[in-house]
């Protein structure tokens, strides 16, 4: 049975990226082999990838970075004060509520003004209230979120202006720093 172009188009990218499961790669290769349009689409994706890479790498290649490491090390010498690393641990909604004040204090933040938490329920998981995702909203000058380590959990970071919203899909711990 022949698969159609509509099915193959969204998979061409993952395919050239080597991110497609073997069974999908197999039928896709078969389809592309006998479909001129998809074969051309694939070629376009590859041409674009190569062109973007070449353009960006070429542009950066001429930059003189010889003084950069020195500049960084010099800044580190002048910047000996321990960094205000914001490390937040996000638990399930219940635990979070119980620990919110303590966490806020540890992070040097005023509870109400600078750190707020809103519990929302995922539209996909309406059936399991209490295991819904957390919406942690850390704002304020001290609350720069350097990175979010979701560990084994699902999550997303949404950013809007000064506000960073970290969304964690289950009630296991995730470390935000």
């Amino acid at each position: 049975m022949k698969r159609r172009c509509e099915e193959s188009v969204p998979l061409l990218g993952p395919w050239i990226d080597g991110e497609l499961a073997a069974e999908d790669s197999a039928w896709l290769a078969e389809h592309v082999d006998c479909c001129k349009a998809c074969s051309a689409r694939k070629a376009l994706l590859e041409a674009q990838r190569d062109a973007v890479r070449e353009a960006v790498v070429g542009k950066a290649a001429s930059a003189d970075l010889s003084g950069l490491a020195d500049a960084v090390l010099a800044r580190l010498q002048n910047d000996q004060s321990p960094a205000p690393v914001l490390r937040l641990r996000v638990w399930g909604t219940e635990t979070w509520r119980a620990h919110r004040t303590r966490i806020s204090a540890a992070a040097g933040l005023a509870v109400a003004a600078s750190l707020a938490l809103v519990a929302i329920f995922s539209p996909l998981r309406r059936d399991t209230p209490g295991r819904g995702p957390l919406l942690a909203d850390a704002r304020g000058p001290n609350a720069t979120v350097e990175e979010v380590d979701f560990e084994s959990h699902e999550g997303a970071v949404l950013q809007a202006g000064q506000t960073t919203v970290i969304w964690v899909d289950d009630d296991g711990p995730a470390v935000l720093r």
Partner: protein
Amino acid sequence: MTESRKPAGRGADPPDDRSLVRAAQGGDAQAFRGLVERYQRRVYQLALGMVKDADEAMDITQETFVRVHRYLPSFKGDSSFFTWTYRIATNLCLDSARKRGRTERVDLDESDAEIEAHMDPPSAALAGPHRAALNAELKSKIDEALAGLSENHRAILLLREVEGLSYEELARTLGIRKGTVMSRLFHARLKMQRKLREYLADEVKDEGEGEG
């Protein structure tokens, strides 16, 4: 349990990231310098692609490594060092772009109808081999097209096409799900194609064998 220590190769392979990171975590400035020198161009490349301005890209690169150093104690080695570094660099780039308010932050991905409309096959000439060198016009069109993307689309496109991150690494770097990686990348590429396809087609045609 004691950690077995391999004898240091004599002038052979350069030390791997892991041992440099460990040494830097222990306060070895030269080890940290080694890490900076190893990754500075890749970070700069990413920053330049993101913010376009060379001075700003240089500032971001410097700031990235200052922060890398700052957060080094908390780096657990569960992701590769460069992925972790990219994560910091990407966040700085996104912050910087946002501060300038240069483009709309919200990603409006294409509707199905728009994708459908885009489904007409590109010209057959594209099936030929690619040109090795880009012409100046295409280069400037690529610049333009990148600048026209939202930050999120630009970041994922650069991290994938230029830096070659896997989908798993993209998910970790950008703090998104793997499913989101796929769709975001799809839309970012689509938007680039809109602007580049005619130029890319020319590139390929120039060199293509023009098979029937």
